[in-house]
């Protein structure tokens, strides 16, 4: 589904990714871990199409297309979704409007009819129940006045409604207490499907107790230094990152 080859990315005069390669297949859940400043967030931002990064080398192929050639909105319509580490507050644009506009843009792109109001509300209510969100969320401004945990739940709600093929979760666990983490993880788990891939970036092993990854990668210095199964995460928890860096050096 996603094939990243020898990716080099720069922001300003800082080289952040240094020849990163990664293969993610349909149905798989990959966790990307690594110390601060290793380039984890840059990777998902670049995949989602955030401006301000320069790809100097390498390719990203998503379902046979050159992902980097697409505008952010085109990526979204092709099924790429990023759950933000810091979801943006947008007063004056309400949540329900954003969900509907996003969903309809995607449906239109797929040649499907726009969703009707009744159907849409039923769908959103069902997903809100899953995320244990209150009805009042709908008519508030996007993330406006939400707590950190509410914002993260709202990201997964959007993911549940938009049904992406490739979900990129950028530190979705950060800032969550244990109850909120459980809700968010349940949401993500319920969205695991054979035709959907999930790439999650995280600092902490604890997320992986709730969302069990198929593959774990260690990103450091802009490259993937080591990959393994979920046992790698446990080892990282015990031993930290230095042994991998030393082994790679």
């Amino acid at each position, binding site marked *: 589904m996603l094939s990243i080859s020898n990716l080099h990315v720069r922001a300003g005069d800082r080289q952040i990714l240094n020849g990163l390669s990664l293969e993610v297949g349909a149905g798989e859940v990959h966790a990307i871990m690594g110390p601060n400043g290793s380039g984890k967030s840059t990777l998902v931002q670049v995949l*989602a*199409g*955030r*401006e301000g990064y320069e790809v100097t080398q390498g390719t990203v192929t998503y379902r046979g297309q050159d992902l980097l050639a697409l*505008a*952010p*909105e085109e*990526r*979204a*319509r092709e099924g790429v*979704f*990023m759950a*933000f580490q810091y*979801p*943006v507050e*947008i*007063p*004056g*644009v309400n949540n329900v*409007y*954003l969900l*509907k*506009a*996003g*969903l*309809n*843009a*995607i449906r239109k*792109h797929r040649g499907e009819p*726009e969703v*009707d*109001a009744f159907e849409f509300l039923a769908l959103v209510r069902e997903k809100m129940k899953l995320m244990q969100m209150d009805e009042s969320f709908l008519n508030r*401004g*996007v993330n406006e006045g939400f707590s950190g945990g509410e914002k993260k739940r709202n990201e997964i709600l*959007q993911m549940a409604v*938009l049904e992406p093929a490739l979900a990129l979760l950028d530190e979705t666990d950060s800032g969550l207490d244990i109850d909120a983490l459980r809700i968010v993880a349940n949401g993500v788990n319920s969205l695991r499907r054979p035709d959907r891939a999930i790439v999650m970036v995280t600092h902490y092993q604890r997320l992986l107790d709730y969302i069990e990854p198929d593959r774990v990668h260690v990103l450091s210095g802009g490259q993937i230094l080591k990959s393994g199964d979920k046992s790698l995460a446990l080892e990282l928890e015990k031993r930290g990152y230095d042994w991998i860096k030393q082994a790679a050096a």
Partner: protein
Amino acid sequence: MSAAPAITANPALERLNGLFEARFASDPLLEARRAALAEFLKQGFPTQRNEEWKYTSLRRLESRAFVPSERVPIALEAGRQPWVHGAGLRIVLVNGHWAPALSSMEAQPPGLTIVTLAEWIRHDPAAALDYLSRAAEGAVSSLEQLNAAFFEDGLVVRLAPNTHVDEAVHIVHVWTGTQQASMSHPRLIVRAGHHSRCTLIEQYVFVGDVESFTNTVATIELEAGAHVRHYRLQQESPRSFHIGHANVRVREHAHYFAHDFSLGGALSRFKLAIYLQESGAHAELHGLLTPTGTQHLDTHTRIEHIAPHTTSTEDYRGIADDRGRGVFNGKVLVHAGAQKTDARQSSRNLLLSAKAEIDAKPELEIYANDVKCSHGATTGQLDADALFYLRSRGIPETQARVLLIHAFAQSVLTAVESVPVREYLEALLTTRFGPVQVSS
């Protein structure tokens, strides 16, 4: 080097003097007018040396030769009437003169009296003169004096105590079909009796290609417990100059609400001065300015907290694009003794092009020690993070921009309680910035 003060002949002032003599030589209020004119001539047009006019130059206005506007009969079929429809009792002034055929003020609800200023002066010249000379004493700007010299018509709205009027009083000023560049100096006088309630809609529009100068003065008085909601929609022609003054006096527990939309004109300047004179007096201001092209739109507010326990809130927003220039100057003055004042002001401005400019200047002057005053002013471009967030959910960039522009104006629009006015303004913003596509 010192020299005797030179008496420079200013052609603009001389021209106004000549026009005055020709027009008002036999006017019943000649003396009062002449006193106002003398005051204006002494001061001249405000210049940028005056701190109040730092950002706004009137040289373009001064260089144009405007003549007093003539009454022009117009018939406008419904489709061409540019004003808000169905907003309330409508009074239309065309080129500054009352146009009864376009107005619907016959059926006045009990307790509400609306007369034209010309009519008032005809029926009760002594009272009118007395009122106008008192108002002239409070005039701060020379342009108010110019109005007092040249005014011809306008409206007097009186609300009896305890009267609640549901229907808004909708005052429309239309410019149309002038042969020469014309000026008008309309006046609005409102007196809301104690515990009365009403809504005013003051609207300035044009039909056709018009070069005009409007110089308007409103005097609004709220007696104890009165509530007045005042919409002001300035949508003058691209070749027009619009100068507006509103002086509002608010008595005990009275509430004044202003909704100020500066949208049109080549150059516009509105000065809103509010005097919270007695305890419990409250003012709530919502404003939007949208300069584009080469428009220069300036709003100055001045809120004086004179008595203790007075409150005010201000939410002003500017959206500038192209080479548009906006000015927001919000002054809050808390008098000594006005303890427990609560004054909050916010000015937020959005620049949509590199050449657009908005100058936001909050000014707080506080002479009491137990008060809560806050202000904040921001000016910036569309939030790149918000734009990316919307795009990452599949919304095209152009649509995301439109959405964010409308969202920026949202708080000012949702404060508009009149449904016809709100829908009218939403349609204007849609024409201006593009539609928010609300899918079914």
